[in-house]
Structures are given as structure tokens and as C-alpha cells.
């Protein structure tokens, strides 16, 4: 899939798009169908959306972004807060001249998508969250463990809470292989930004339709947390994905893609 950089004063934001490659200074063509912009979760990166990019390329214009310091975007430090990340996303949407987009966010990326919808509604048609809770419950020991990795006391942890009950080895390898591309200190700052997020208090300000998805076996975002998010929004639909964990878009891509597609069709209707 073609990749590009959007350069700002001091950053180069890396993104993956579909369709024909364009010259370096020209944004890709985003006119076909709906423009879908995928936002990764804590310590994640754009290629984790490969199944969605491939699926939506047929009739839509999907784009997946690496936030600063994630994946192959430049920068040493990740955004310090959900709002800071949302500002980068808003700038990105403007930079690629995106039409009003459907933002699809995973975990922390879900809060970022909602914050963009609240702050810059003109850039957003709808929001999809995957494995995102109204109030994230990130246990202290998860933060402590990651902090030890950052301090060099522990090696990178290749553990399984991301996945449902019968994880597929290929999916686990793909996620871990992608996550080691981002400095663990950036994943830690994402986690802390997500934990400190005040987005839940401002959900009333989100005046766009939202689809809330959560894996039924998500060990990092309890179903109740996602349901609370859907309830607090003025225009939300909720769906639980059977046999999926926290990375439902990797584990049960067909089901997730189908749900998103129906939501996009509803928005167009």
C-alpha cells in the first residue's frame, strides 16, 4: 500500500493510503466514497489497520496515520494528552485536504477521534471507536510494568492481554512486530494520556453519529466501559464483537469491517 509523509514545521507524519500513488507534494485522491481515517491505539501504528485499508479501498478512501513518534512518523515524544493528539489529527486532516471524514479509533485512538469530533466538527462526519471506554481503567501494575521497560529494567513484554480467549499466533506476532517499532516511552505516554483523558466529561459536545464497538472478550476495555461510552453520547450505536479481544479489528476483521461499512452507509443515507 502506498505511504506518504505530511511535513509540518518540525514533524513528518507518516500515513498509509490506498489507490494510486501521487507525487510527494500532492495529497492522495480521497474523493472516492467516504474518507475513513484510522487512528491507532497506545503505542500502535498505521499498518495495524491493513485489513481495513484493503477492505475499504474497494469503494472508499481509507487512510491510516502514525501519530508523532509512533511507527514511522518523526518526533521523539508522543502527544502529551488526548487533546494534543487531536490537534495533530486535525492538522493532518487539513494537511491532506480530507473531506469531512469518518474517524475510526482504537483504544486511546477512540478518545482522540471523539476529541477531534468535539473540537473540529466540520472535519468529521462520524466516529467509530473500537475497544474504547468512556473512562479507561488502566491498572497501576500495567503502567508500572511499562515504566520498568522504559527504564530498561525489563525487556519488551510480549504478553497476551490484547487478545481474546483463543488468540491466533499470526495475529499476535503481527501486533507485537508492529508495536516494537514504537519506543516504549511513547506507549507509556499514550497510556498516561489515555488514563488522564477528560473526554468522558465532554461527550455531550460530540454532535456526530458514533459507532461503539468492543470485543466480547476484551481484557483491557470491559464491555461495560464501552456501553457507558455509547450511553453518554447523543447519537450512538453499540455492538459487541463475539470471540474478539482488544484488537477486534485484527482478530475479527470481517465482522468489524461489515459493521463499519453499514455505519458508513447509514451516514451517507
Amino acid at each position: 500500500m502506498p505511504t506518504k509523509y505530511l511535513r509540518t514545521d518540525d514533524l513528518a507524519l507518516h500515513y498509509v493510503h490506498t489507490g494510486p500513488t501521487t507525487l510527494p507534494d500532492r495529497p492522495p485522491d480521497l474523493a472516492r466514497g467516504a474518507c475513513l481515517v484510522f487512528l491507532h491505539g497506545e503505542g500502535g501504528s498505521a499498518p495495524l489497520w491493513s485489513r481495513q485499508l484493503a477492505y475499504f479501498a474497494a469503494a472508499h478512501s481509507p487512510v491510516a496515520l502514525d501519530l508523532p513518534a509512533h511507527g514511522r512518523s518523526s518526533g521523539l515524544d508522543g502527544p502529551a494528552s488526548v487533546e494534543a493528539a487531536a490537534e495533530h489529527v486535525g492538522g493532518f486532516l487539513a494537511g491532506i485536504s480530507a473531506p469531512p471524514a469518518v474517524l475510526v479509533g482504537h483504544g486511546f485512538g477512540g478518545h482522540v477521534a471523539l476529541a477531534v469530533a468535539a473540537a473540529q466538527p466540520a472535519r468529521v462526519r462520524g466516529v467509530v471507536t473500537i475497544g474504547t471506554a468512556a473512562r479507561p481503567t488502566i491498572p497501576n501494575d500495567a503502567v508500572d510494568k511499562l515504566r520498568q521497560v522504559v527504564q530498561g529494567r525489563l525487556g519488551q513484554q510480549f504478553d497476551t492481554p490484547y487478545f481474546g480467549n483463543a488468540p491466533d499466533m499470526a495475529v499476535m506476532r503481527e501486533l507485537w512486530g508492529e508495536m516494537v517499532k514504537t519506543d516504549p516511552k511513547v506507549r507509556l505516554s499514550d497510556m498516561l494520556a489515555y488514563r488522564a483523558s477528560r473526554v468522558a466529561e465532554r461527550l455531550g459536545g460530540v454532535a456526530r453519529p458514533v459507532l461503539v464497538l468492543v470485543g466480547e472478550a476484551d481484557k483491557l476495555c470491559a464491555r461495560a466501559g464501552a456501553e457507558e461510552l455509547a450511553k453518554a453520547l447523543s447519537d450512538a450505536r453499540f455492538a459487541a464483537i463475539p470471540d474478539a479481544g482488544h484488537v477486534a479489528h485484527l482478530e475479527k476483521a470481517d465482522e468489524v469491517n461489515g459493521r463499519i461499512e453499514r455505519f458508513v452507509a447509514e451516514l451517507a443515507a
Partner: protein
Amino acid sequence: MSLRNEIAIVGAYEHPRRWAPDKTAYQIAAESARGALEDAGLTIHDVDGYATSGVGPIGVLSMCHHLNLRPDWIDSTAIGGSSFVAQVAYAGAAIRAGLCRTVLITYGSTAASERFAIGTGGGFSTDPPDSFDVPYGPTIVGAYGMVAQRHMHEYGTTSEQLAEIAVTMRRHASLNPHAKYREPITVEDVLASRMISSPLHLLDCCVISDGGGALVVTSAERARDLQKRPVHVLGAGVANRHNGIGQRDILDIAARQSGAKAFERAGVKHSDVDLCMIYDSFTITVLSTLENLGFCKLGEGGAFVESGRIGLGGELPVNLDGGGLSSSHPGMRGIFLVIEAVRQLRGEAGPRQVEDAQVALCHGTGGWLGIKHSGATLILGAG
């Protein structure tokens, strides 16, 4: 190489990025070249000598193509990370010999975004006699670990003393907005970090970053007409050490020879040196280099680096930019030693400025300390 006061560094630029997955190594080198020439108040058309390293056997020719240069003098010295330190001296010698007038030296690397396992990958030493060791899996960090192990065995040097070096570099990095890691650490943090090759912990090892830089070298006479205060080359020395068929003392390193020559040629004393830029691939590299340069006796390095002596405000501040341990290490760090020394001698180092810095010593180490390595020493003076 008695170049005293005849040769000057008139342009220096350090690329600000430490993580540049959107750029190639050539782009970083070219952007650095532009920065150094602007700093000097010169243009690419003034360059008639060019040097680079770390670009493969004839990569210097590709770099000439990339920069659209057809210089009268070309060099791609390959003695490891110290190459760029040596190249300042070699450029000076070429200028003095009349081979060229203005030399541009560049470096660019994307080691971090290429995920290059510099210290732990091994596999560089395939020439004899190292080819006999290679099947047993030697690594760079293993070679440096061996020197540290020997130092501890001979002199009772402690991990706490080595850690003090890493802590000091991090403190300096906290004053450098471009450094890769800026959050202060303690001796306990270093000791609690993972063991990589005993006795070297993770935080005893340099970072891996992207990055690059460039220098412009010309005659002292020409430097007088340029915009910035020149930095003069006072003396230089280049040396090496190898296995010597197994008979060598691994604590006797190339710095002993290159340092002695540089001091003799510069005509300065150790007490004249206001700051040092010492190649810090690992904490032991700094300790061993300070000893072999003669700042303290062999075996006394551990005590020497304690109690703040090598920190900003101390008796002999070392690596004010945060060094390879915290600021940047794209694989060959030598050029950054010279760039920071130039900033310090010009008084441009901001919050990490050593007060009234007049004389700076740079020492680069290249290759595998304890197995085969090079040392290049440069003593610079404010113009």
C-alpha cells in the same frame, strides 16, 4: 601533523533529528552540509575538498554525486566512529599541502529507523584473524564488556563508578533540547537496568539514533575573513591497537598514543584543557580514554569520574551535549564530538556552556575496544 594555528574549523552543524524515518542517510548528510556551509557563510561552490565515512567502499563517490561536487581532494577514511575526528586532521594536512582550500566533511545515518543492532549484532569482523573468533559470536558490547571486566579485576573499579558517567551524560542531555533521552537518571537506575554484557548494563550503553552533521575546515588565514569566530586546530594524533597475536594488554588503548602526539603537537598541558568530548559508546570507553589520555593514572579512572569532576561546573566537563549515552549515536559518533567542541569554543552552547572555554579535546574511538580499534585525538582552541 603539526598544524598548530594553521587550520581552522569555520562551519559546524548538527542535524536536529534523532528519529528521521522519513529521510535517507544521504538527505541527512546533505541537509547537514547546507547547515554547516550557512554557518560558515560559504556556499557549496566554495568547497574544493570533501570527506565522509560510513558509506561503504566507494560511497564517497555517490555522496559527491548527491551533493553535485567535483572536488580536488576526496577522502573516505574508514577507521570506525573516530573517522571524522581523524578527517579534520587529514583535511588540515591536505589544505596545508596545497591540495585544496576548503574541505566539507559530512555524516548522515538512519541507524535507528533501519533498526540496526550496532552493539549487539556482531558480524563486522570478518577479516583475519577475527574470522577465527566470529563463529563464537563476539559482539561490540561484548568486546567493551571485556575491557570493563578487566578494569574491575585489575583495579577494583565498580559499576557505581561507571554508572556515574552515564548519569552525568544524562544530566548534560537534559540541557540539550535535541537529545534523544533527557529525563535525569540516577546511579541506581543504571544498576537496575538490564545487563547487556556483564558488567555493562543497558544504561552503560549508548543509544541508537538517526542523525548526522557536517564541518567546514579551511586555512586559518582564510578563516579570518569569514563570519564566525574560527576554532583552530592546535594538535592532532591518530593511532590504533590490535590483538598483537594475543599478547596485548587490553587496558592500553590507542588514546595513549594519539593523545600523547596531540598534546606534544599542540604544546598545551592537561591543565589547559577546559572540556573534553570523549567518544562514549559505553561508559567504560570514557573511563579508559581519560586514563590513556593522561588525565589520571591507569587504574584511577573510577575515582576520577566520581564526585562531579566530569560534569558541567566540574574540573573537567565531558560530553556537554549528552554524548552517545543520551543524546545521539547513529553508529559513528566522531563528528558530534567536534561539533559540540566548536559550539563550546565559540560560546554558543547555551545552558550547557562551559564558562570561558578556550581549549577543548576531542577523542574518537572506532572499532572494537579490546579487540582492534582506532583512536583519533584533536585538540582545538578558540580563535
